């Protein structure tokens, strides 16, 4: 009997802990969302513009392919921080930078196309 009570108490505590944790997570996510800024990179004429984009932590960068040839947005780091699927004309790719640092990237189809995002 005593044993089943203690089990019940334990389960209750566990539920409370999980509830508290998930609320905390939601709050953190909400806070990050509120802080999020947006930035754009245009892909045109076999180049990324701007070639160097400086943003603050939490910024979501969106690349749009304005070229009449498909391109990709592929991290040059190992392991790759991000990698888009192939982007045909007018297709977009977004990535949110949550850590400061310099992120070099390129087009894996036309590797001479290189650029970087600096996250501060």
């Amino acid at each position, binding site marked *: 009997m005593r044993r089943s009570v203690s089990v019940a108490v334990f389960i209750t505590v566990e539920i409370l802990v999980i509830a508290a944790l998930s609320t905390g997570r939601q709050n953190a996510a909400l806070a990050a969302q509120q802080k999020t800024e947006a930035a754009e990179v245009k892909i045109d004429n*076999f180049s990324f513009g701007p070639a160097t984009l400086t943003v603050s932590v939490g910024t979501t960068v969106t690349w749009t392919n304005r070229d009449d040839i498909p391109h*990709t947005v592929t991290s040059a780091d190992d392991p790759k921080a991000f990698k888009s699927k192939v982007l*045909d004309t007018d297709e977009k790719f977004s990535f949110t930078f949550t850590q400061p640092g310099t992120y070099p990237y390129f087009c894996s189809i*036309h590797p001479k196309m*290189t650029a970087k995002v600096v996250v501060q």
Partner: protein
Amino acid sequence: MWTQLGKHGWKISPGNNWPCLTVCINETRPIRGAGSLDSLTRAALQAGWQETATKNNGGIGVSKNEEERMSPITEARKTVLRNSQNELLHDHNHDGIDRRGFLKCMAWAGTGTFCVIRGGMLRSYSMSRLAELDPREMAKEIAGELSFAQISDSHMGFNKAANPDVAGTLQAAVDKINGLAVRPEFLLHTGDISHLSKPEEFDAVEQILKNAKPKDTFYVPGEHDVLDDDGKQFLDRFGKGSQGAGWYSFDKKGVHFVGLVNVMNLKAGGLGTLGHDQLEWLEDDVKHLKHSTPIVVFAHIPLWSVYPEWGWGTEDSAQALAYLKKFGSVTVLNGHIHQTMQKVEGNVTFHAAASTAFPQPAPGKADSPGPVKVPAEQLKSVLGITDVNFVRGKQALGVVDSTLE
């Protein structure tokens, strides 16, 4: 005997026992300017064909006796090459554009190139020029023991202004192949079959090529064929019996064909790459072949530095070519740059084929290598196919056949 043809072209008539070879050999100095490439091309086109040949030390696929018999040409060639070799190396290693010191024929007009290997040397013809020939004349020109056609960069799925009907232009290329006086034994497709690696794009190309009289097509992938899946779909469709990412070799009538893959794992800022595994395989693949065996290598991105600034070259091609140094005749067929271009360096003749989809600008002649938009009525004149015809000289025939036994 040498006769000058145009500004930088030369015609050699070696004697009664050898087919007349017409050779464009640049004089080292006049070709330095970018403009002289055009004059070379014009000279070749005015003559109704493009044809290139060079050799270091004797005949290609030719016995020792044959070499001796050919010695007057060999000596003349040696002189030209001796003068040019230092500059060739210098330029090749430094600016990669290879303006100096070797032959480079570039054709920016016409429907592509028709090539003939004779006695191990490659000759090439503009397809539109061939079409102008009387059928009997054409049959005579392209008759041989082995002929094949190269198509490249069909980019099925591309639908922008530069060519809204890539299926139509591929079909036109097939019609041209079917209209040749001699049926090529097979087709080579040097990559960028599709535009976006979509199943329906590959399907469409396969359907159109079913209408071609040659029943076999040998493929290598372009970077547009391996998008998002590391080439799995390409391998499933076209890579049966191949190694690694899709490289393989086969023999046809004494000619050894090698299909290479240089579009995988491209690195930021880099060029095409073959990679260690493939290079090792290549070394082993050609190790036991006799030096007289004519070699035809085909890969998507050029295996020579056409224009590294646009990624038109292959990082580790020098290693691959080193394994092929011992062979008298090596022909390299590429695509990728959507224009025909040729170069001879030592024992190697390089050819890039036109696209069947859309043209790209000449190296450095635009801000980027994007599609060149030409008026619809001119489009077909800048697209094309390449036909290669292998013809063995009587003496060489025995030598090459014995290689196979």
